[in-house]
């Protein structure tokens, strides 16, 4: 199934049935590289309660390099050996800004209040009763899905809270 909203720009004018047809003869690859920390990339809330997301791509060299590496490998494994015409072609796209599933950072943890919002137990440096246990504490996102790390950290912080309130 061709995913609306996940279509490469090249296919913008193609009718949906044709994308479905292409999808049946296509192999999908998902390449992930890390968005490195950038102070300007942040989430804020305005007075009307609307969420503002400032985002600029980072680490483009790694993303471009990985994409070219994939193409290089695919061109050498004989995917179109038995065809007279070269039938390999590539359509790529980046996840749009609306793809907000893996946001992290902004309240990163650390030992130094000058460079972090939370201490190593994910407690706010300046408040005694505020802890943050979502992906905000990540100093960096890494290049993998963060949910299991967030859950593991929530357990770690929870055990700290239990020992603190015992």
């Amino acid at each position, binding site marked *: 199934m061709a*995913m*609306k909203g996940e279509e490469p720009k090249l296919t913008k004018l193609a009718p949906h049935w044709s994308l479905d047809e292409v999808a049946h003869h296509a192999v999908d690859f998902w390449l992930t590289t890390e968005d490195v920390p950038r102070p300007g990339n942040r989430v804020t809330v305005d007075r009307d309660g609307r969420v503002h997301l400032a985002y600029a791509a980072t680490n483009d060299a790694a993303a471009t390099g990985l994409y070219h590496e994939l193409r290089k490998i695919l061109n050498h494994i004989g995917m179109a050996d038995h065809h007279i015409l070269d039938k390999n072609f590539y359509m790529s796209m980046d996840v749009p*800004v609306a793809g907000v599933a893996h946001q992290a950072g902004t309240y990163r943890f650390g030992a130094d209040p000058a460079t972090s919002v939370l201490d190593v137990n994910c407690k706010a440096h300046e408040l005694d009763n505020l802890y943050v246990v979502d992906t905000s504490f990540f100093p960096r996102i890494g290049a993998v899905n963060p949910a299991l790390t*967030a859950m593991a950290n929530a*357990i770690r912080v929870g055990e700290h809270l239990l020992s603190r309130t015992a």
Partner: protein
Amino acid sequence: VDSNRYGTAEATPTNFPGHPLSHPAGVMCRVTSIVIFGHVTEHFDVIIVGSGAGGGTLAHLLAPSGQRILLLERGNFLPRETENWNPGPVFVDGRYISPDPWVDADGKAFQAQATSSCSASQTRWR
């Protein structure tokens, strides 16, 4: 949480609604009271804001401790239905996306591919 009993939470030393340090998945510990229509009616040891991957996991861990815990969640429960398992309704139709426009750096509104619902992070995203 009983939907008829919405109130604002007062915490020491900072009132967290609207405070720069407030956060959808923040955890207020040793919070003093819940104020409903101006009257203090409930006391909690822990208030957890958001039932996602972090808040939901923490609530699960703290629940057996006997502490009084309030878990706040903006969204409703996801319906139990076959569409949950189907990429068409989930990704093409955006069936579970919360209609909640965000604003990008240029001031342009966009629909974030995000969901507000109980345990959304754990049930939908990995």
